[in-house]
């Protein structure tokens, strides 16, 4: 009955090895003090009970004693803090070359999208030994991505992309929970993280998918009519989006901002919030039309333009002489599907 009692979750990612020593140290401190204090109470209770200790001693306090038991806890507290802070600091931002996975949380399910187009629900496949960064957003209330075996947890907000990263160190299947209370079926919002050998992972990746995220995004770009304004030609009524991701954007009011994923999302959902310098506020509001999964695809597409700028025009109605003159080195043939 108690044989598979999970006293402590498996240790299957890089952070687990860093944080567990601190964990055990704190357990030791806790046990030491609770046992110490309980023994003290018991000993005092026996030794100083009225029947054996008829005269109370007159002790009102003692500066030396009190200073000691102020400074020792202070020292321990600071030591724990510094240790914890050092570990937390070492987690850092997701490494640049991490494998990127995107996900949306909703009542009550997890949906993941891989860059190559694999989609999964309540399951997340990742290769062992490789940094993985999962960028998540919620389409309704707050959820929380929690994998105990990775010592990874992050609240998933409805209005902002956040990224959690880890490097799985052991293959296997691990629990994925929603840890932030999100309504009636919160306890059903659970799934699995499957850590695979890289070779198996490649096989798995190849097994499915309806084209990469970026290519789905490209279709949406046409579907929503973005392409009628955002083009690289002269007749464009909106800025060229190639090279936008990661660059600094200047706005009409003089402010600037780096174009990250959150910026792209905002400028599609609520374009009037910040107007790019030199353009008219004519872009329609897409809030309520583009859902969070489509948004991830559009963003993947816009990001892909950094590598393949001409991608934007493969099926443009008329091949544009003007543009080819301006941009002679780019030949239509190099366009990748």
């Amino acid at each position, binding site marked *: 009955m108690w044989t598979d009692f999970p006293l402590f979750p498996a240790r299957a990612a890089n952070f687990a090895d860093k944080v567990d020593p601190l964990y055990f140290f704190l357990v030791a401190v806790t046990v030491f003090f609770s046992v110490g204090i309980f023994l003290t109470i018991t000993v005092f209770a026996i030794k100083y009970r009225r029947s054996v200790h008829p005269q109370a001693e007159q002790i009102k306090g003692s500066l030396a004693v009190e200073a000691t*038991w102020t400074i020792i806890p202070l020292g321990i507290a600071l030591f724990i803090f510094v240790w914890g802070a050092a570990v937390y600091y070492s987690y850092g931002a997701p490494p640049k070359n991490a494998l990127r996975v995107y996900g949306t949380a909703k009542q009550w399910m997890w949906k993941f999208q891989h860059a190559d187009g694999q989609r999964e629900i309540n399951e997340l496949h990742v290769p062992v030994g490789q940094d993985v960064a999962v960028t998540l957003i919620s389409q309704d209330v707050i959820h929380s991505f929690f994998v105990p075996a990775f010592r990874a947890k992050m609240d998933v*907000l409805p209005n902002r992309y956040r990224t959690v990263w880890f490097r799985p160190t052991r293959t296997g299947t691990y629990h994925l929970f929603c840890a932030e209370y999100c309504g009636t079926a919160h306890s059903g919002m659970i799934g699995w993280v499957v850590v695979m050998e890289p070779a198996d992972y490649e096989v798995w990746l190849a097994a499915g998918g309806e084209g990469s995220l970026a290519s789905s995004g490209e279709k949406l770009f046409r579907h929503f009519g973005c392409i009628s304004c955002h083009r690289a030609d002269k007749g464009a009524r909106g800025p060229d989006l190639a090279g936008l991701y990661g660059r600094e954007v200047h706005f009409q009011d003089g402010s600037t901002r780096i174009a990250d994923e959150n910026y792209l999302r905002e400028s599609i959902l609520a374009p009037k919030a910040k107007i790019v310098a030199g353009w008219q506020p004519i872009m329609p509001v897409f809030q309520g039309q583009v859902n969070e999964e489509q948004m991830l695809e559009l963003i993947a597409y816009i990001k892909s333009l950094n590598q393949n700028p001409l991608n934007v025009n493969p099926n443009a109605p008329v091949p544009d002489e003007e543009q080819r003159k301006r941009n002679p080195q780019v030949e239509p043939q190099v366009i990748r599907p």
Partner: protein
Amino acid sequence: MSEQAHAVHAHAAPTGFIRKYIFSLDHKMIGLQYYFLALVAVFVGMFLSLLMRIHLVWPEASLPWFGHIKPEQYLTLLTMHGTIMVFFVLTTAPQSGFGNYFLPIQIGAPDMAFPTLNMLSFWTTFVSFMVMLAAFFVEGGAPLSGWTNYAPLSAIPSAGPGQGLGEDLWIISIALFSVASLMGALNFITTTLDLRARGMSLFRMPLTCWAWFVTAMLGLLAFGVLLAGGILLLLDRNLGTSFFVPGGLNINGNLSFPPGGLNPGGHPITHTGGSPLLWQHLFWFFGHPEVYIAILPGMGVASQLLSTFSRKPIFGYKAMVYAILAIGILGFLVWGHHMFMSGMSPYSAFAFSVMTMAIGVPSAIKTFNWLGTIWGGRVRFHTPMLFAIGFVSLFVSGGLSGPFLAQPVLDIPLHDTYFVVGHFHLIMGVAAIFGIFAATYYWFPKMFGRMMNETLGRIHFFVTLLGTYAVFMPMHYLGMAGHPRRYSQLTELNFLQPLMPLQKFMSIAAFITIAVQFVFVINLFWSMKKGKKAEINPWEATTLEWTVPSPPPHDNFGGVTPVVNHGPYEYSVPGAAKDYTMQTDPATVAAH
């Protein structure tokens, strides 16, 4: 009685039933009203937890009257259990109940500074409690968004049954409760500062008074913020404002909510630009001080009792006062430790983390000073003392899990798991309840003129102590194993199956613990009528309430303002005739 005191307390003892027992202006009656309100609330809250524990381990069970508990009903029970326990028990009994009754007497005042305001705050609390209970009976039932009520879940009527009218009632109730607490806090602060008897300098106040005073200041700063948050949430829910609701939410296919809802201008409601994290900041800016509002009065009572029953001065009186103040101040700087996971920069996390660790220091000082108080004493183990020691024990075991949660790296695996449930039940829930029990057994003779039964008291103490440890200690292990909190269907999850025997054990321990509370209630009501008659000062304590008859007369000191010559903890003074020196004893005794 001095002129000034007359002016403050001009009303004569009322004679009619209504003025005496219902709309009473007497702080003692109001204190009792609060106390009995909390007693009803704690039984409601306990009953809900009973249903919860049954559902968790026997989800198929069919209960008499109630039938089968559905998963969403579990979440409703959870929400109402947490809310009722935190607000109507832990905020009500220790501060408004005992504080009202004993603060004026302990500082030598005939009543609170504003008796009418006092009556008003009780009745506002009462209405607030009725509104909260009413949520059970409206369409959709009581809300299920948790006692923390996070937006946008709490802002969306369609998020589940109970999130309609029930949730609005929840918010209104909490807003009323906040108003009542603000009025009470003002009263406590003014009373402590202005109505102390001659000779009762601040540093001669019993530590209970210090605790009530600091608690009142926390309440004054914290409840205003909760009130504001509640009003904004009501606006978001009903008038289409967007303080907490970001744009474009897609709730089960509904893009605007309430579906078909119109704002006052007649346009469809479309939310845009709100910040869910704003609610969390407002809530926890209130919420963390709230846990100190619950526990500080218990600390005051524990200090008082450990000294009295060890027949020794409290160890390091001034350090105790400074520790209460430090906890009060630091308590306002740590709310972010509840939000490490919600997306704060690592640097803010470090700031909140170090502040939280810092609170451990005054807490450790208090603990060690309590031990120092027993050290070398002549200890009498009456029931109140047992509960005071129990308080210390729970405060230590609940407090030691705090440093885990204060580390962002450890909070990652532990946040929103059962570890947190174990932590806060021990330190804020049961420790504060032990404070209430200790205070009840200690002051019962003063309030009702009779003693409570010691044997029943001991049974109550030992079973409750072991029972609560059996219920809440294993929760820490569940949390470390990764068991998330607020999960309603444990039996359906494979992972949780190996933990089920432990869950069953906890449920059974909870039933026993709950059952033994009836021993307490029987003792309480039986002793009121049949208990042994109490002397004026049965515990041979030193503070002012033990100089007046039990129960004290209408204006406490029978028109004679007491004069205070001693500190509150002069026990076993060498050379004195008896082993305690009353605060009102002539000054010469202390000179020896």
